[in-house]
C-alpha cells in the first residue's frame, strides 16, 4: 500500500517511509526539528495544493495529526 503522506515525510525528513507511521512525531524523531517542520509545510502545500494556516501548522505534531488536518481541509488522496 502506498501512502502519499508517508512518502512526503520520508522526503522531508530523510527517513525511509517504512520506518514512519502516523505515530511519528518530533518527540520520537530527531530529524523532525524546526527546520524540517518548515520544509514539510512547503512539501505538503505543493503536493496537495493547499494553503495551511498557522494554527493548522501548529496542530501537525505527528504524521497522524497532519493527516487529520489535511482531511479537515477536504484533501481526499492523502
Amino acid at each position, binding site marked *: 500500500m502506498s501512502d502519499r503522506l508517508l512518502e512526503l515525510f520520508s522526503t522531508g525528513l530523510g527517513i525511509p517511509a517504512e520506518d514512519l507511521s502516523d505515530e511519528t512525531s518530533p518527540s520520537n524523531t530527531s530529524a523532525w526539528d*524546526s*527546520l524540517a517542520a*518548515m*520544509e514539510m*509545510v*512547503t512539501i505538503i*502545500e*505543493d503536493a496537495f495544493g493547499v494553503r495551511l*494556516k*498557522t494554527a493548522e*501548522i501548529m496542530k501537525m505534531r505527528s504524521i497522524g495529526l497532519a493527516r487529520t488536518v489535511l482531511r479537515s481541509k477536504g484533501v481526499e488522496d492523502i
Partner: protein
Amino acid sequence: MTVERFRIGVTASFTPTPLYRSLLSTFVSGEEAEVLEADFNLVHQTLLDPEGSLGSAPDALLVLWRVEDIFTQSLVDWVVDAADPVGLIEDVRQLGGLIRQAAAGSKAPVVVTTPPVPVFAWLDPLDTRTSVRLSVLHGRLVEAFLDGLDDAPVTLVDLDALVRSHGVQQAYDTRNDLMYRQPFSSAFTKAFGQLLGEALNSLTTAVPKVLAVDADNTLWGGIVGEDGAEGVIVGDSFPGNAFRALQNGLAYQVANGTLLVMVSKNNDTDVAELFAVRHGDLVLTEKHFATKRVDWNSKADNLVGIAEELNLGADSFIFVDDNDVELEEVRQRLPGVRVIKVTDEPDEIAELTSKLSAFRFAKVSSEDRQRTSMMQVEVGRKAAAAEAQSHEDFLASLGLTVRVFRPQSAHVGRVTQLVNKTNQFNLTTIRRDEAEVSALIASEDHRVYAAEVSDRFGGYGLVAVAIVAAGAQTWEVDTFLMSCRVLRRGVENAVVQCIADDAVEAGATQLAGDYRPTAKNSQVATFYPELGFTETGEGHFEAKLPLDLAPAHVTIERDA
C-alpha cells in the same frame, strides 16, 4: 578514495535553509558540497570571523541580507517618523566595507546579495506617502553598500531584481516570515536558490565571448537573397520591431565586451546592400561585427575558422540560428558550442537576448577567473579541433530523402513560384508564368521535374525544379533551380542523376545545360564543371551519358 567536499559558508539575515535544495541542484558541484551555516542573523559577526562562526574555512561564502532584517529599528523610525536616514545609510556603507574586508582576508570567493526594496507586513506597498520616498532611499542604500564594497572582487546577486521579476505579491510570504523568519514564498525561494547556484557556477565557468548569429530570419525576417534588401522585415513597426529588439539586445552585448560575428549562407553583396539601404531600420551596423562569414560553406566549418581566427575555443561560442539542420550540425560537430534556436514567434524573437543567462554574472570577472577561462579556452580549442566531424559525416547522419517526380497540375502554383522567386541557386533564371509552366508539363518534348526533400528533422516540401528539353540524342537542361534551404546537401546531384537516368532510358547519349550569370547566382557558376560536365561553348556544358552522381548519403525515391 576520499572526496574533498566543497564547503559553502552561508550567513544570512533570514533563515536560509530552504534555499539549499534548489541551490545545490543548480550548483554543478552541488552533490559534492556541504553547507556551513552561521547562526541566525549574525551577519556582522560572521564577516569578522568567518572560520570561527562557520566552524571551518569555507570554499565560498554567501552573504544574504535585507535592510529590514538587520537595521529594523532605523528603518521603521524612518518610515513612521520620517527620521533622518543618514545613520542608516552609513551603517549600510559599513556593512559593505565589512564584506570587502572579509573578501580580502580569505581565498574563498564571496557571493553577496544587494538588498531588495524593504517591505513590511503592516505597510501598504502602494501608499505613495512612503513608497516614493522608499524608492529614493533604496537607491541611496544600494549606492552606499556598493561604495562600501569599493569594487571588491565579490559576485553580486541582485535580490531586488529577482523580487521585481516575480512581483512583491508573489515573492513574499508573511506567514513564513512570522513563523520561521523566512520571508519568501516557496516559489521565490526556489528561484532564489537557483540564482545563487548560478552565481557559484559563474565562479568556475567561463562567460561566453562570442555570439555567432545567422542573418536571414534571425537578424531580420525573410531571406535577403530572395526577398531583396527592401523586402526583408525589420524596422519600427510590427513584426519588424521584433527583429529590432533582438538587434538592440545584440548591440548591448557588444557594448559590454562580447564579440558578435555573422555566419550566413548568402551572397555577401546582398548582405552588404541590405546594410547600406536599410540602415535606418537596422540597429546593428557592419561595425558591430568582429568578423563575418557570408558564403555558402558549412556553418560548422565557418565557426571552426572563426575560432582559429580569434584564437578562442568552441566553449566560448553561442550560436544563434533559426534552422534546425544548421543548429544540429553545430551541435554534433562542435559539442562545446551552446546553440540557441530562433523561433518564428515575434515575442520570442524580441526576448531572445534576455534569456542569455550565461551572461548574468559576466561583469564581475576577477583576475582569477580570466586566467581560468584562458586556460579553458586553450584546452577547448584543441578538443574542438580533435572532435570536429567532417561535413560528410554530418550529412550521412541526416537521413536525407529526395523524392523526384513529374509535377501535376496541383503543383503548378508552387513550381511557378519557385521559377519566379529563386535567384541564387538558379542556373538560367528564366522566369515563366503558370500558363507557360502548365504548357511545359503537358509538352511532349519537354520534361518538368520537381523534388521534395526531407530529413530526420522533417520535410522541406517542394524545393527544386528542373525543366529539360528532351531531344533524341541530347537532353538540354533549360531550367535548374533549388531553394537555399537545402543547399550543400547533395540534393542537386540526386536530381541531375534522375534526369540522366531518364535520358538514358529514352535513348539519349548526352546531357547538356547552360549557366547564365546574374547578379545573384554566382554560387552556381561551377555547378556543371563540379558534376564533371565539359564546357563546350560560352556558359554551355555537356556530359556523356550515363552519369553516376548520386551521393551515398541521399535516398532517392522515384514515382512509380
